[in-house]
């Protein structure tokens, strides 16, 4: 074949260039609040995943549902805050002007819409948690169900923001 559309192998420099393009173009196109939503979604997924993995592991060792532990929740909260603060500091360093800008009219609508869906999710989660308690009378399970509802609704809020920023 006379003409080749693409190279057979990517060199290290090609890969580096592609990664740079993805990061640079991605971060320069995204508004600050979308970057913030990405950080919070990632932070929530990571810290919550770790938290519930520890709870599952503890429960397996105990042979029953582990009780909610204050030190674990403190560690979870501190980790979430540290990731959020460091993440926001980093994106603010790259775009200091955008970091101080208030939401514009389209962004306010996006946040309202995302908040609306998040409210529905936490409402459904709390109803489910209460029903779960009525059937099990397990206070620990009630705590985890409400806690999970709170986390899921927050993730839904940020995920909706990302989707709306990208589609509307």
């Amino acid at each position: 074949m006379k003409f080749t559309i693409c190279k057979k192998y990517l060199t290290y420099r090609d890969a580096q260039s592609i990664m740079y393009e993805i990061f640079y173009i991605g971060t320069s196109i995204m508004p600050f609040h979308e970057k913030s939503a990405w950080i919070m979604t990632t932070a929530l997924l990571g810290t919550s995943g770790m938290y519930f993995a520890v709870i599952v592991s503890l429960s397996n060792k105990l042979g029953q549902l582990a009780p909610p532990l204050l030190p674990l929740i403190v560690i979870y909260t501190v980790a979430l805050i540290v990731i959020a603060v460091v993440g926001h500091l980093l994106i603010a360093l790259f775009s200091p002007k955008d970091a101080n800008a208030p939401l514009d009219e389209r962004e306010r609508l996006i946040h309202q819409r995302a908040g609306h869906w998040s409210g529905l999710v936490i409402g459904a989660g709390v109803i489910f948690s209460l029903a779960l308690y009525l059937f099990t009378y397990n206070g620990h399970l009630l705590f985890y169900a409400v806690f999970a509802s709170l986390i899921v609704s927050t993730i839904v809020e940020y995920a909706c923001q990302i989707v709306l920023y990208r589609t509307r």
Partner: protein
Amino acid sequence: MPDCAVPDALNTVGKKHPIDNQIANLRKAHGLTQAALADAVGVTRQTIIAIEQNRYSPSLETAFRIAREFSRTVDEVFDWTET
């Protein structure tokens, strides 16, 4: 299901948008970038992109600000077709 009190400005995905505009043409004619227009109007560049691509209907105030930047009337910049 009621969709709270969010106006229809964002409800345009997959639908023919009734409001068309000449912003991209006027912006190019005036030698303005999307970022420069966004700064002048007081919105983000992404909002200007969304308006140009008919994905978002700006508020009346923003529409007037955009028209003023091009020294045109709102009618000359925006066009509404009943669907």
